[in-house]
């Protein structure tokens, strides 16, 4: 285990941000896989949701997830505050080289903030939203499908959701490859490929989540 003062170093904070970020990227993938059951049908989606919440391990999973979010946000916010302070006086003009910063990399603190607001609203709207009931194969369970479809009847909610998922795509598109660099994984042959996979992942999650929201809009 790293020594007790690991967190007090810049690289320690960066590595915690990176590893929790990777965990959260994994969460976005499994969450999207679950959401894709909407395409299969209401019963499949509801049965999946029911299986998740009726497994006692869900509390452990949720605790780990919450821990990752809290650590990720706390470390990233500290690092960002230090970065702003480190510049001191701003440049009168600052031109980018065109070979470094990308839209994704330069907006990380902003996309991160959008995602935090999104997640809070998302939990309020869905996890703690209206409780409808349905019966699948004789088992009474929550009708999450109905709630989701009703929510996305409002085009403004769809627009906010798509906006947030573009933020997610940008955030993970930079974050995935960045986390590997922070953990010291950089290779002249594989790193360019890792960057492509990272960007492709960002595009896929943004399209996947947004596509499902638009699909639900048209189910109304």
């Amino acid at each position, binding site marked *: 285990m790293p020594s007790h003062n690991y967190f007090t170093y810049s690289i320690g904070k960066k590595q915690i941000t990176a590893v929790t970020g990777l965990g959260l990227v994994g969460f976005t993938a499994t969450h999207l896989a679950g959401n894709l059951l909407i395409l299969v049908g209401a019963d499949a989606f509801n049965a999946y949701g029911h299986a998740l919440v009726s497994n006692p391990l869900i509390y452990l999973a949720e605790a780990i997830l919450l821990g990752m979010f809290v650590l990720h946000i706390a470390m990233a916010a500290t690092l960002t505050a230090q970065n702003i*302070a*480190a510049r001191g006086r701003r440049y009168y003009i600052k031109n980018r080289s065109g070979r470094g*910063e990308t839209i994704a990399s330069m907006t990380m603190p902003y996309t991160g903030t959008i995602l935090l607001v999104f997640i809070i609203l998302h939990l309020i709207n869905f996890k703690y939203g209206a409780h409808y009931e349905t019966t699948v194969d004789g088992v009474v369970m929550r009708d999450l499908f109905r709630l989701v479809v009703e929510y996305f009847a409002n085009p403004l909610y769809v627009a906010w959701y798509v906006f947030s998922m573009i933020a997610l795509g940008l955030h993970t598109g930079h974050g995935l490859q960045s986390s590997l660099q922070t953990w010291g994984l950089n290779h002249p042959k594989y790193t360019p490929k890792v960057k492509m996979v990272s960007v492709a992942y960002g595009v896929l999650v943004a399209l996947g989540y947004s596509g499902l929201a638009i699909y639900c809009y048209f189910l109304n």
Partner: protein
Amino acid sequence: MSAKEEMLTLNLKIWRQEDRNDKGRFVDYKMEGVSTDSSFLEMIDMLNDELVKEGKDPVSFDHDCREGICGSCAMMVNGQAHGPNALTTTCQLHMRSFTDGDTIVIEPWRSRAFPVLKDLKTDRSAFDKIIAAGGYISVNTGNAQDANNLPVSKENADLAMDAASCIGCGACVAACPNASAMLFTSAKISQLAQFPQGQVEAAERASNMVREMDELGFGNCTNHAECEAACPKGIDLRNIAHMNREFLKAKVKGK
């Protein structure tokens, strides 16, 4: 870029600041008859000759070798560290990179850890402090013959040589959106970690140099790669990855 010498008329916008405590401001200068064959620093020399003749205070800037190896000529030229050309220090930048009638904005490095001393001169002793925290090998490496008894692979030797080409100019800090010194620090950590002689102190070195860098108030790398693009010596981001590994190893060892 034309091979034939031309004379340029330029509008310069240069940061003037009396001392550390002065607020500082931009001052506009018009330059006429600047040869495309002259270097950027020669152009400032011309301006300073004029200012001295007029009894005014010349523009202070750091310079020494004027051949791209000392790392003194730190300045932002039109918002880019060392100007618009890749792998070039300001002293190696020629006026043929500009066109007649251009406005050129010249600013010092902006970093809380590099306070402005006067005009374009900054106090970059923070880099010396990072080196002093561990950027050395203190084991007795013996004579040439002993060195030959400790083989270093071609790959390690090449990586060490690439990292050693860092001239400590500070362009990485200046160009980094976070004013981070991680490219500089990593070049030193990575260079010394390539050798068996450097392994002895590798853990303490990584830990102490990173600690010093943090305490001096530099920002934190967020992997934009603006430093790599601005570096006149082409120091690779792989060095930062290597530093991150060395740091992790040091912390696992409890150093």
